[in-house]
């Protein structure tokens, strides 16, 4: 079990990224989520669905040790997360946040080399082996030709691939991707999902959040639907992504359709929104 999450809760009350003290957090008003439990193994792809502002990003940051939950336990390889240093976590879990804000136009290769940071001691900078691993990660994702470009000048899709290469250079066991397909065009979304699929087949565990139930159908083997700070359902996509669950999550009527090759899709039914012009 790479990641085992047991009944965690998080509230913003007196909590920040470096606060290791757990409080009981009975202040309901600041509660982001509670009672969340699940586990992930090698090769799993977990897709977390849910409406805006329901706490998906906060949950992902807890899994990565950036935030500390107020209750419950997170076990990485059977060991409690607070027993790990940032450095130890970063060797096991790679994370791509949503909405990176860039300041300096680093070259693509420099960005990917940053993924080697967990393995480079304080006194050193990347050596030949690190360079080799970074170049291999670029090659794996088919973007080796971009290595000298400034990452700030790339398109959204290319930039997402650069971050994916960085996280591969980190050589983790688990990838946490916060809405990896947002801001990507239709074709790039599908290509990214295919890459995620292949990475999982190569032995990585992957947790991603998404706004598209179809992405969960096509790529993941586990789905969680999050609503108002709880998982309303968790399991395999066919069981979890149902018209009823999506109605609860998004308050939209949906029909689940099956294609000729047994692939399922969500087909929203136009909601009736009475606008008064």
């Amino acid at each position, binding site marked *: 079990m790479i990641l085992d999450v047991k009944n965690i809760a998080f509230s913003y009350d007196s909590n920040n990224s470096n606060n290791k003290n757990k409080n009981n957090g009975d202040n309901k008003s600041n509660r982001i989520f509670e009672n969340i439990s699940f586990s992930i193994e090698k090769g799993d792809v977990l897709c977390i669905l849910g409406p805006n502002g329901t706490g998906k990003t906060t949950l992902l940051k807890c899994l990565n040790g950036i935030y500390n939950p107020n209750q419950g336990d997170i076990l990485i390889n059977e060991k409690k997360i607070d027993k790990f240093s*940032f450095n130890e976590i970063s060797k096991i*879990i790679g994370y791509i946040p949503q909405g*990176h804000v860039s*300041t*300096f136009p680093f070259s693509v290769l420099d960005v990917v080399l*940053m993924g080697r940071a967990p393995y480079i001691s*304080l006194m050193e900078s990347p050596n030949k082996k690190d360079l080799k691993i970074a170049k291999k990660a670029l090659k794996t994702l088919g973007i080796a030709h971009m290595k000298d470009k400034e990452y700030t000048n790339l398109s959204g899709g290319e930039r997402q691939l650069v971050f994916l290469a960085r996280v591969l250079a980190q050589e983790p066991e688990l990838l946490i991707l916060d809405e990896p397909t947002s801001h990507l065009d239709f074709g790039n979304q599908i290509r990214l999902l295919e890459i995620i699929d292949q990475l999982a087949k190569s032995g990585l565990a992957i947790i991603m959040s998404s706004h598209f139930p179809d992405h969960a159908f096509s790529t993941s083997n586990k789905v969680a639907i999050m609503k108002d700070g709880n998982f309303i359902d968790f399991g395999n996509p066919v069981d979890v992504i149902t018209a009823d669950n999506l109605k609860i999550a998004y308050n939209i009527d949906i029909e689940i359709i099956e294609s000729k090759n047994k692939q399922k899709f969500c087909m929203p039914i136009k909601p009736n929104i009475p606008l008064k012009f």
Partner: protein
Amino acid sequence: MKNKRYYLSIFFLILLPIILFFASFLIGRYPITPIEVIMTLLAPLNSELAISPSITSIVFDIRLPRIIAAMLVGASLAIAGAAFQGIFKNPLVSPDILGVSNGAGFGAALAILVAGGNGIIQLFSFIFGLISVFITYSISKSYKAGGILVLVLCGVAISAFFNALISGAKFIADPNDKLPQIVYWLMGSLSAVNTEKLIMIIIPILMGIAVLMILRWRLNILAMGDEEAQSLGIHPSRLRLVTIVACTLVTAASVSISGIIGWVGLLVPHITRMIVGPDHKVLIPASLSIGASFLLIIDNVSRTATSIEMPIGILTAIIGVPIFLYLLRKGYSQWS
């Protein structure tokens, strides 16, 4: 990027300060030939090479400390500026953003008011430079939302506070001797540098520079944002604190010997970035080289251009601004 031009600029950046170092011995009121300089510099190894006691005194007691001081101060301000721009993710930041310069300025003004000895002025300004950054950092840490923005705003506030104290010191200073002394100190000058003063600053500066050189690659990661840095296994607040301490040491030590020299810490990192790119692994040592060379050139102008020596703080802006504006025109076309 890493083509012939890149390696050529690295070669140039190593050579430039070395050439300027030797060339600067030739500049000054008393003319010395290159051969005399080389012979005199080698004289401590072989006393037969010494030319005359007066040339030895000019080279070792007057020009050498001043050249080293100009290079150390320029290198310090530039490296601190480059590191601060990285860790605050903001290319508009300069080394005095956390209040070190105004703190040091007040320390110097206070020392001038109460005592007046050169050593005391230097010591007070160094200590008050450190104190002001300590106050800034402690206040921002005591706030719940202690992010980078809060830290920088605290720095701006503490800077303004010490600036007011400097004005207060000027207001009560005796207008016949103390006031001009304070004003002159604040304009920045290396004219009073001697070997003893230099020895006082050399250790904190070399320590700070060594720390920044060791950590320089990691500054790239800090520039990507705290959460990304943490997910890459770096303790962002710790690394930032170490960087701030190192930058404050070098800046406070520089200001304590030279007074307030503006522009170098903002301008040189930008010039350097235009030449070698934003990777701190190269940017930090390159800033060191360009900072040292830039201030040495300015100081050479300052001590020879006019019959009365012009404060270096005035010249850095007068010479630096046109250079900066020229480079800006072509340098940042890729930046949004």
